[in-house]
């Protein structure tokens, strides 16, 4: 199909527009974070910092609360992701491989949970966690994160498992593998792209969550970065903490970008090619 010059120009313009639309707020945030805290009010309207400064970054790292909240974020997000993906892998495998009564219902129910408006569960969760002494603890956040990320994880993973030829498992059995050996040495390595994809989705969900983080925490013992940002104050009560918030936002965006870049190759790589004919 011949691509005319006009078409090319049209598509390029559209692409550039979309990318600019998406990246503009990011650039604005980065630009803001490098402006001098005192200048933001006067300098605020400019697209480019008049004088570059790292003062905002220095400022937020001087706050013990921010460093602590980063640790909370990392810990809670990683633990939730590991547990959710581990459970989802097993559940998805069962859903993809086994026939059992009520399978459709189970998948439907789990999707229903994912679609449930989270805000409606915040107050009950608050009461439950206070009673169980889970309020303002890491596990107080890990449990709801897992609950809400599991359905999506199961759904994504079972699609990946369905792609793996069943004969590979039969072959492993014939080669003398126990079911767990077959799973660990044959099925799991092949499902790796799916597992990584799911892990990234779950991690981003946990990392970005604000609703549960602000509702189910009260101190720096478990407050994560998105919640901590709301507690930032300016140098004086008359100053807006815009610069610090921008700097902190940049800081917490970086790990996600690195994570996605690192694993993107594994996601794209088609690992199952060559397994079976066809």
């Amino acid at each position: 199909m011949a691509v005319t010059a006009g078409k090319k120009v049209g598509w390029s313009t559209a692409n550039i527009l979309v990318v600019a639309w998406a990246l503009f707020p990011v650039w604005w945030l980065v630009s803001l974070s490098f402006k001098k805290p005192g200048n933001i009010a006067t300098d605020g309207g400019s697209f480019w910092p008049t004088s570059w400064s790292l003062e905002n970054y220095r400022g937020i790292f001087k706050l013990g609360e921010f460093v602590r909240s980063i640790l909370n974020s990392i810990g809670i997000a990683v633990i939730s992701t590991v547990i959710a993906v581990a459970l989802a892998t097993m559940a998805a495998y069962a859903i993809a491989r086994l026939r059992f009564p009520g399978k459709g219902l189970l998948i439907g129910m789990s999707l229903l949970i994912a679609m449930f408006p989270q805000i409606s569960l915040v107050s009950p969760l608050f009461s439950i966690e206070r009673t169980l002494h889970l309020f303002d603890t890491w596990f107080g956040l890990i449990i709801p994160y897992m609950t809400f990320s599991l359905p999506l994880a199961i759904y994504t993973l079972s699609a990946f498992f369905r792609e793996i030829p069943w004969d590979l498992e039969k072959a492993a059995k014939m080669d003398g593998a126990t079911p767990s050996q077959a799973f660990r040495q044959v099925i799991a390595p092949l499902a790796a792209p799916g597992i990584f994809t799911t892990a990234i989705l779950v991690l981003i969900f946990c990392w970005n969550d604000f609703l549960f983080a602000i509702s189910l925490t009260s101190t720096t013992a478990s407050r994560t970065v998105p919640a901590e940002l709301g507690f930032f104050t300016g140098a004086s009560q008359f100053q807006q903490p815009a610069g610090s918030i921008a700097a902190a936002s940049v800081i917490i965006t970086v790990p996600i970008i690195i994570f996605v870049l690192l694993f993107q190759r594994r996601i794209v790589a088609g690992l199952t090619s060559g397994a079976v004919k066809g």
Partner: protein
Amino acid sequence: MADIVLDGVTKRYPDGALAVKDVNIEIADGEFVILVGPSGCGKSTTLNMIAGLEDITEGELRIAGEVVNNKAPKDRDIAMVFQNYALYPHMTVRENMGFPLKLAKVDKATINAKVEEAAQILELTQHLDRKPSNLSGGQRQRVAMGRAIVRAPKAFLMDEPLSNLDAKLRVQMRTQVSRLQKQLGTTTVYVTHDQTEAMTLGDRVVVMRAGLVQQIGTPHELYETPVNLFVAGFIGSPSMNFLPGTLENGGLHTSIGQIPLTPEIRRALEGSKADREVIVGLRPENFEDARLVEDKAGGGTFTATVDVLESMGSDIFAYFSIEGGGASSAELEELARDSGVADAAIDVNQIVTRLDPTSRAREGQPLEVWFNAAKIHVFDPSSGENLTHAVAAAAADPGRHAES
């Protein structure tokens, strides 16, 4: 190495569907046995039951004298080659072939030595460090074989291992499989739907239909003495010609005329009722251009127009259409369905003949054709049973007393 005995093995699915019914096969140590039949006949299910991938509902499976009904596949010490090869895509050829040994906790040096040895036999040595995705179909097939032979199992099970290869490679690999099996002397059960593979590879062939074993025998026995219409139609290529016929006053009338009965066949048919409908079967090679037959006794002739002529060099296949309806029975219909000619309405009866290359048959020209009446098979149309089985058996193997 071991013998495998299937004793009344039956497979019934939870929904009540009967996949395999009362299969009795004794496979001797080192024997190469083929399970053959149209799709859905239960041959793969039978193989999977031997492998342990499917449960046995009733009956007993013994490998080397030991009942293994409830043993997991890994404890049966048998290897399997799958139709789609089922190679592990994340492992190299070396790792693929060494996987069963690695699971058996064999030390690395031994694994390497055994893999190298198997690779040598299968000519895979230079591909050992490649991944399956970089191999051709034939190479993948050999890796699958290699994975089976490295651990010297009690038996090989092969589930249509050649059906994914192109025609030329299939013939090459067929020879290789046969040579390999003889070289290793390992008991082998091989499933195929291709009767040519069954005939060329097997020491013995088990023909199955609708979950039932139809006949077990050497390729020669199946060809010469089929027990019923199904086996007769399934074995042989081109397949046997079937003509509707009537037994009347000791004579056999068909659309190609009166067929003279040999004394043996007459005696075999005497037991049955006086006048009856039958189906007559004659293989293509039992016809000949009448001009080339000097002694026409012991046969009959008919004249018909040659529809299509296929010259193979060594033989000529001539196709004739004979007026009068074709033979019909449930078994023939199933065969037709399997070969995909079900919708060819059987108003005219097509006959395939194999003629000598010196024949002067021409497409569109009438030809007088002679047939060998001693070679006919007479079948009961309702049961499909071969009424002349005993005669054929005696003729095929004069030394042995005809059974049944």
